[in-house]
């Protein structure tokens, strides 16, 4: 499974993981909907793996893919 890059150049440097105190770094994260799985590069905590799915992504690309998969 190749990793999709969906966040172009957005800056997440101001976000950190509150529990671990770490800055978020881009990492491949596995997402799934219905029968489909894919890896997407998302900002996440290098220690505990907590992920950030930004609003634009959730309501844009992700929503598009969701409805596409629903119609498959």
């Amino acid at each position, binding site marked *: 499974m190749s990793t999709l890059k969906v966040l172009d150049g957005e800056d997440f440097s*101001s976000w950190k993981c509150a*529990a671990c105190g770490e800055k978020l770094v881009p990492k491949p994260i*596995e997402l799934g*909907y219905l029968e489909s799985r894919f890896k997407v590069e998302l900002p996440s905590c290098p220690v505990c793996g*907590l992920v950030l*799915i930004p609003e634009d992504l959730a*309501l844009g690309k992700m929503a598009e893919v*969701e409805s596409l998969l*629903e119609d498959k």
Partner: protein
Amino acid sequence: MEQNSLREWEAKCIQEEPPRCKAACPLHVDGREFCKQIAAGQVDKAWAVLCRTLPFPAVTARICDAPCKNSCLREKVGGGIEMADLERFCAENTKRTPPFRPLPPRGKTVAVLGGFLPGLTAAWDLAKKGFTVTLFLKNTYEAFETLPQEWLTVDIFKHEIEVIKKMGVTFVENSTFDDTLDEESLKNFDAVFADPIACSPENLKISTPSLTTLETEKKGLFAASQPEKNASPITLIAIGRKGALSIERFMQNASLSAGRERDEPFETKLFTNISKVEPLAPIAVPKNGYTADSAKEEAARCLLCECMECVKNCVYLENFKEYPKIFARQIYNNASIVMGTRRANKLINSCMLCDLCTEICPESFSMKNLCIEARKDLVEQGVMPQSAHEFALRDMEFADSEACAINRHQNGFEQSEWAFFPGCQLPASDPDAVKNSYSFLCDTLTGGTGLMLRCCSAPADWSGIVDLFDKKSTELRSDWESLGKPKIIAACPSCMETLHKAIPEAEITSLWSLLCLYRKNLNPVLPKSIPALQDPCSARHNEKLLADVRILLTDLGLEFTEPELSGLHTECCGFGGLLSDANEPLSQKVAEHRASKLDGDGITYCAMCRDLLAKTGKRCLNILDIIFPSENTDPAARTAPRYSTRRENRVRLKEQMLENVWKTPSTPRPAYEAIKVSYTEEAQKHMEERRILVSDIKKTIEAVQKTGKVLENTDTGHKLIYHRPVTVTYWVEYEMVDGDTYLIHRVWSHRMKILGGSK
């Protein structure tokens, strides 16, 4: 959907039936398309329309006597289109004639005996179809003498003869038509067409040929009885065309007669509504024929006949840009997809199931039934998009849950002759109206009036989940039976409809009919302006309800107007069929459309109609607002409660009813409700648009309080958390204020699951 049921659906929509002009034309020229092009100033394109159908069009267009004119629908509103003069204008003014390219040779030969209009036409049509045609005639120009000469010159005729020759027809002049010619021809050619002007059946020594196929007792010989002296040129041409078609079928060994009912002029099934068309007389034809301007003007009188009745009256159908015949096919294709994208899901799930189309369609095409069947089919196949109806279904479950539902006898009674069933939306929209109505009913009716607070299960029905609706129906029935099978008083017309389906044996009355019955006991506060009545679409077929509401309003002294589409033909507010869940933007469009049709304030008797119209900014009353007035001095201005408020209203209604009527404590609220939250305006707007409830936010906070999985923004100090209670992941961005209050800045959600996230 089965293939043959698709055919049935398709056949029901007559939008693709030909217009009357085309049906009445012996050659079936598309007068509608022709007029459309002329009106647009596209003379060459109009000419191309004629050239598709007319043989030797330069001649035919100038001798046509337009038998279609009397059939033209315009005849009823001003006068039929002057098709003949328009054709002539077109012939005179076109700059480009499309080339006539015969099909590749088929290696079959045909003799045509006689070169008058029928013979020339047969030769033209057969040559075009790739047959090798030999035309026997006395003299090439003898036909010209028989034609109306007013607009025709011999040069034009000659030119068209040249075209026929170029199409490969061999002319054999000086032929004599004795009875040997056809015998000879039958030996030398694969088929023979005898022009009835040149050779009569007597000459050919045959009995009268068959009328529909021109077949004779001599195999391969096609002929016709002698036409009348002053037969219309177009009729003569049609004889040649019929002969050519029979010969083609004869050569292919196909049935000569099957499916030819529409060769002759016929009556079309197309319906075109002219009730709003202003009469307009034909544009007089100048002595030298139409000019470009007058032709345009005349052609513009064409009504461009089509049906589209349903599409013109349904925002949903209009939005999907086709008509039901096409939709039926799209829905059928959608159902047959195994791998690939089902493109019609949105179409299927956006119908309001309001059934206006059925009432309006001249053939009673029910898009409602088509869509509901398609939904059931998607559900059964397990491919209904989860997002389409989930919110509504969850809302239904919530309304039926312990938090909101009540099923009790009237306080102090052991039995219920009646049971008030306000549905789930009236309690959500206006809980006070429920309290007031219930206490009026308890005071007015005898025998005990129980209360049933729950959803009627319309969402289960509309979403096509048959099992769920069955399960809900069982629940409904057992609630009703536990009250001793009372007569149900429903406040919402949709509830009435759904309850009839769920518990067919129950007697169901509308709140409105009862209010009408006891109208003398009411003390209404009448509005200052004259409102317009919005009938809910689910009241469409409920004649008693429609009538009682009108009697009630009139007798209460309320003056009201009605929009053009009202009563049996009322329009949906945009809620029906769960449209607002499946396609929110369209639902808004529908609501705005309906609001614009109501003069002044609206007045209605459905909580959803009121709220959807109110959401568009339309001032709108529920009839209960005037019957049981509250402190609110301007109830028409009341905004539609948000989704979360709607739930809260239901919960509080139950608590207050239990407390005030039955003096019973209600079940305690879940712990997360104690979490203190406030919202920015933006967050509140997003919650509504994205259907994120206060409870979703509080549950998210509660869940994260246990795990401590929080992101923090070092610039703003905002915290960000997420949680997936069931099928949706909620994201909440907040800031702590006043020590213990979560000030919500932003909220969003997605359905995708994070699989490889936090470990």
